């Protein structure tokens, strides 16, 4: 017997798949109507993607970009979470760092990238630092809000029953912060890979951003779209295969 829940999930998947199919068909039709190399149909872009994948060029560049995304993501999430925890917990830390955070939050990504490249040269470290610094303030702000929303009564309970620092963090604080951490992760992933592309375009000689720069100079829209699409697919796979199952697992206790 198929449970109602499974049937519901099946139906949701079907609608999702159909919506993607409709999108692809609309793109295909529009591309064929336009009949211009500047607006290629879906089939052309997918063919380019297949060719570039078979030759190994696309996997090479996508791999490099992915590594940069992972490095700057881990850096931004780690440092941003630590900062947000400290700022949410201790008012003095918050007062000291709030202005700097606001500055960083409002500094355009491009300015930060250019400055770091000027100061530290067109290096890998500068590139990753630039991306991480762009994401760090939003993570810190999100986690700080999470800490401010912590349930004071549960923290008192932990004190009375002598949970100790590690157990308090793990069993009382972290479960309450998870929704904020997931929000930061999700927005972070979306933001970071876009900024990585700009960083690569401006100062690296490999990666998806670099390839897009090359094909921009050739006005080769099919290649530009093929690289972008490949990356969108990968980010989507991360969402489906890692983020959503993790989130479901973390929210098990909410299910009735």
């Amino acid at each position, binding site marked *: 017997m198929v449970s109602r829940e499974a049937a519901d999930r099946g139906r949701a998947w079907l609608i999702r798949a159909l919506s993607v199919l409709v999108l692809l068909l609309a793109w295909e039709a529009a591309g064929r109507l336009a009949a211009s190399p500047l607006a290629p149909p879906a089939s052309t872009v997918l063919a380019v993607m297949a060719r570039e994948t078979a030759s190994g060029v696309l996997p090479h560049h996508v791999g490099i970009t992915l590594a940069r995304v992972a490095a700057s993501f881990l850096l931004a999430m780690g440092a941003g979470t630590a900062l947000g925890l400290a700022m949410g917990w201790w008012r003095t830390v918050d007062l000291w760092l709030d202005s700097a955070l606001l500055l960083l939050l409002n500094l355009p990504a491009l300015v930060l990238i250019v400055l770091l490249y000027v100061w530290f040269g067109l290096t890998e470290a500068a590139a990753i630092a630039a991306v991480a610094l762009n994401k760090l303030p939003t993570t810190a702000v999100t986690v700080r809000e999470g800490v401010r929303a912590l349930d004071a*009564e*549960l923290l*008192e*309970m932990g*004190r*009375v*029953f*002598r*949970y100790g620092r590690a*157990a308090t963090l793990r*069993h*009382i604080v972290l*479960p309450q912060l998870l929704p904020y951490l997931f929000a930061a992760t999700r927005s972070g992933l979306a933001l970071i890979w876009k900024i990585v592309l700009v960083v690569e375009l401006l100062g690296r000689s490999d990666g998806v951003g670099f390839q897009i720069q090359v094909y921009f100079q050739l006005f080769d829209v099919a290649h530009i779209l093929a690289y972008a699409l490949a990356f969108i697919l990968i980010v989507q796979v991360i969402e489906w295969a890692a983020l959503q199952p993790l989130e479901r697992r973390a929210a*098990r*206790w*909410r299910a*009735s």
Partner: protein
Amino acid sequence: MGGPATAGAPGGAVEGVVTRLIVDIREKRLAGRPVLGSLAFSLDEGEVMAVVGPSGCGKSTLLRLVAGLDRGVTGTVRWSGEGARPVPNLGVVFQQPRLLPWRTVRQNLALAGADPAEGERLLERLGLAAQADVWASQLSLGMARRLALARALAVDAQALLLDEPFASLDEGNQRLARAVLAEQLLRRPVPTLLITHDLMEAVALAHRVLVLSPGPARLLFDQAVPPGVRTDPALAAATVAALRDLAR
């Protein structure tokens, strides 16, 4: 009252560690407003003291002070005992259950430092054995309150602080929870502060009853409960009536 008798008189020593609570509050303010007035009493080893007063009179504030969760007070709130820490190991039942909804019933006990065997026994006694591996978020309020009581009793506490531990339990579970508490106090007599607004409950469980005025609470009187009360329903009723008269 049908519950089993608690220790007739204070004095059952717990492994040589004597824990005593001394309270001498002159005033306690919250946000500039007085919530507690002049209030002095001491709670001795193995003694059960009921604190009775109208709702909102500051009983829970008193419990927070005694638990060391709030230290801003004019006067003293002090625990003493051999090698005493500022606050001893406490078993606390808060007014709200304060469970971790994202942990199971059993994990809630274990994380609070409950003795595993004692935890299982209390779950069984309080009718929660079937829920041991259920998320605490899925318990009804009555179950959550019984788990909160189990948690307070299962940790190796040097003193118990119980804030209306039987509130929002149905009749049968209230009787059950009272019986379990009375049993536990007999087995392991530790100084216990029982906050309640029910004089009958106070008389049934405590050696002494402290009656507070409406907030900011002052101590109205501090009355010993006659030893025979728990076996003699007529005496219990008379005691409650006498206390009610005094409180008026």
